[in-house]
């Protein structure tokens, strides 16, 4: 205490020195500036980067997307009045990330539901396109990793991997999945048929981010599962269940694509009955010790 008083006293002696005011001013400015740069969002810089990204996205959009979706993403109608390419003004970045990230967009030609294929655009280009489309209006943003990655469940709670916690998520996710998704996507996520040639695609092996975005944006005939419908935490639970389903070994043996009783019936007839009829032929063709006599008699 005495030491502190002494040093304070020494400092205090200079408080009316000629440079004191200037020094305090400099210190104040440094502190303010330092604190600002440490805590404030780097708005000036990032705005600029964002604008560049949007610009880059716009250029890509004009080349690859505008033919069907319009030069400003306003959509294009055919002469008959039907949609050639729908307007993209309010679809949001998540929709672009899903459609382009899974390779569904760009389509080879306008028409039926596009299939999943290898993405045409790189990740940076996809981000640029997403940024551009997001700049056209409202719509959901690309979700952060902790929203869709089940591995973050344990981390978020801060106490390392908590298996019970994860298991609770998985069980809850399974019930949500069966209540909302399996009607179209099948109980193993193998996919199913929709009217008029449409289909609910297979979701086994799909990137968790894309599953999350699909729920958020409802591509094609899929419903939109907004956060009011299925809260983000429940969406994460569904993804956790799907991942468990994929990681779980096939307990019963080969599954034939997880399609249900149709494939089982085919196996029963072709493999089961086929083999047994072949055995029947084999047994009838081999008669105990009398075969030679029989052959001789017939010849």
């Amino acid at each position, binding site marked *: 205490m005495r030491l502190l008083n002494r040093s304070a006293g020494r400092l205090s002696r200079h408080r009316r020195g000629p440079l004191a005011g200037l020094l305090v001013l400099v210190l104040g400015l440094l502190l303010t500036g330092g604190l600002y740069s440490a805590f404030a969002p780097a708005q000036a810089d990032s705005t600029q980067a964002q604008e560049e990204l949007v610009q880059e996205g716009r250029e890509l959009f004009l080349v690859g997307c505008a033919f069907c979706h319009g030069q400003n993403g306003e959509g294009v109608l055919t002469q008959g009045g039907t949609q050639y390419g729908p307007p993209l003004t309010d679809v949001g970045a998540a929709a672009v990330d899903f459609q382009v990230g899974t390779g569904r967009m760009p389509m080879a030609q306008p028409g039926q539901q596009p299939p999943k294929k290898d993405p045409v655009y790189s990740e940076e280009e996809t981000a640029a396109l997403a940024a551009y489309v997001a700049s056209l209006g409202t719509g959901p943003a690309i979700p952060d990793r902790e929203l869709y990655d089940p591995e973050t469940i344990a981390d978020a709670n801060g106490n390392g991997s908590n298996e019970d916690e994860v298991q609770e998520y998985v069980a809850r996710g399974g019930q949500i999945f069966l209540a909302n998704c399996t009607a179209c996507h099948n109980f193993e996520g193998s996919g199913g*048929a929709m009217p008029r*040639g449409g289909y609910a695609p297979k979701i086994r092996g799909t990137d968790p981010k894309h599953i999350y975005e699909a729920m958020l944006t409802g591509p094609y005939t899929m419903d939109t599962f907004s956060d009011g419908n299925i809260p983000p935490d429940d969406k994460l639970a569904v993804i956790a269940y799907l991942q468990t389903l994929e990681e779980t070994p096939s307990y019963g043996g080969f599954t034939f694509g997880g399609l249900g009783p149709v494939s089982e019936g085919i196996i029963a007839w072709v493999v089961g009955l086929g083999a047994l009829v072949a055995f*029947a032929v084999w047994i009838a063709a081999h008669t105990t010790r009398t075969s030679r006599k029989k052959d001789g008699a017939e010849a």
Partner: protein
Amino acid sequence: MSLGDRPDMSKVAKSNAGEPAVPPSRGSQRAGAVANWADERLGLGTMLKKNLRKVFPDHWSFMLGEIALWSFVVLLLTGVFLTLWYDPSMTEVQYAGSYDPLRGVHMSSAFASTLDISFDVRGGLLLRQMHHWAAHIFIAAMMIHLLRVYFTGAFRKPRELNWVIGCLLLLLGTIEGFTGYSLPDDLLSGTGVRAADGFVKATPVVGTYMSFFMFGGEFPGDAIIPRLYIAHVLLLPGLLLALIAAHMLLLVYHKHTQWPGPGRTEQNVVGYPLLPVYAAKAGGFFFIVFGACALLGGLFSINNVWKLGPYDPSKVTAGSQPDWYMGWPDGLLRIIPPWETHIWGVTLSWNIMLPILVMPPLMITILALLPFIEQWVTGDKREHHLLQRPRNAPTRTAIMVALMTFYGLSWAAGGNDIIAIKMDLSINQITYFMRAAIFVGPVIAFMITKRWCISLQRQDKEKLLHGYETGVLVRSPAGGYAEKHLPIDEHQAYALTARDRDEVYVPEEDDLDGVSPRGRRLARLRAKLSAMFFADNVQKPTAAEVEESRAHAEHELHELEHQIATGPNKHGPSSDH
């Protein structure tokens, strides 16, 4: 034994202790002693002596019914195992077993015990899967056995009633399968029971009452699983066992049919005795069927209930199908247009009644009546123990192929969603196609099959009259080519000609004079059908025709050889090649 003789007392015991009056036959070894002990008390000796030597003919197609029999035995064995662990109760429990993704989920005891069988009972999943695969094979084997019996004419007198029993077995087996499919109380089976509830409710007037009786109130209630269980493990297996016993007793009584051939007549059976040949073959086949079921159960997953989760009326999954044998009415249900009639505030759902409540009973009735219809048309009241080749009854064969085509198309329609996603088709287009195909397909199949059979008959006749094609091409001096035919051997010729000539029924107008108008119409109908059955068939050649053609062939052969020997071109087949 006349009254005057002294009764022969040598075979009567002098006391009731000690040795029997008749000493055991000499050389009776230990096994013989045991058999004798049993025979003296059970009196089976005479029966076994006769039946162990019973002769069965040999052909692979006669073993198809055995597949059904043995898979039924597998079903009984594995089924008993499952009953030791399965709890047929709809009491709600919270799952606490080994399968993590369902832990803590509320479910019925029935489903929880199914999960326990799958994950916590040693060998439980294997036996559950064996039971399910064996059920698939049981019904499939019954069907191909039925086809064999029909295509070879083995259903004819005296076996018509056994045919009817077989049809009942097929029906009961299907119902047995459906009740078993429903027991796990998973999402798939619950959806099936829900559908069944809808079918029952579609019955006019009494539908709702019947549904409430079935479920003990509104669906799902808590009574349906115990009820289905008792039907599945007691009622239906009992009926199945009784009918299988009757089916096999009749088989023994009628004796087995056989293919025609030298030495085989309507009065005898040529083959091998039950012991040791058929006991070994049939007994061995049981182990093969058991092994096939075990392999399927061990290698191929079936009905992964843990992925479907417990039944909950608010949930449903794509790929919800019944097991394959219920697939064809489900297919009809999927493709029928939405026909409904609203009358006096009541809805008549034709779209459910026709495919589910009308078609299956109708098909089983048609199936059961086939022998009687054919008998009425042909007027054939004789006993038949020799089989017919399918080609020699073209119309009969064509009728079954038409029925099979109808069945197959309806069946495929039951998997319309899987066909749509796997073959990139539109489910709507599949529906439109099937709506037409189930009517047009059987007609086309009938015509093709009938003509095909007749062509094969023609080929048989050709073979009988002109011999078989040797593959030896002969060039005549004039430059023409001909293939050398040689007569087929006698045994083959016998087998080909061992059939009756078909006679078309033609009612004589004089005979119809005293007949009522209805009787006359029936006779005319019968005549028309008889003409359809037989008029186009190719009849076997007469003995004279065969003789003549043989002589002709020999003559031709000589002539040909003569030409070759004397002609300018010596490159034809010679005796030294």
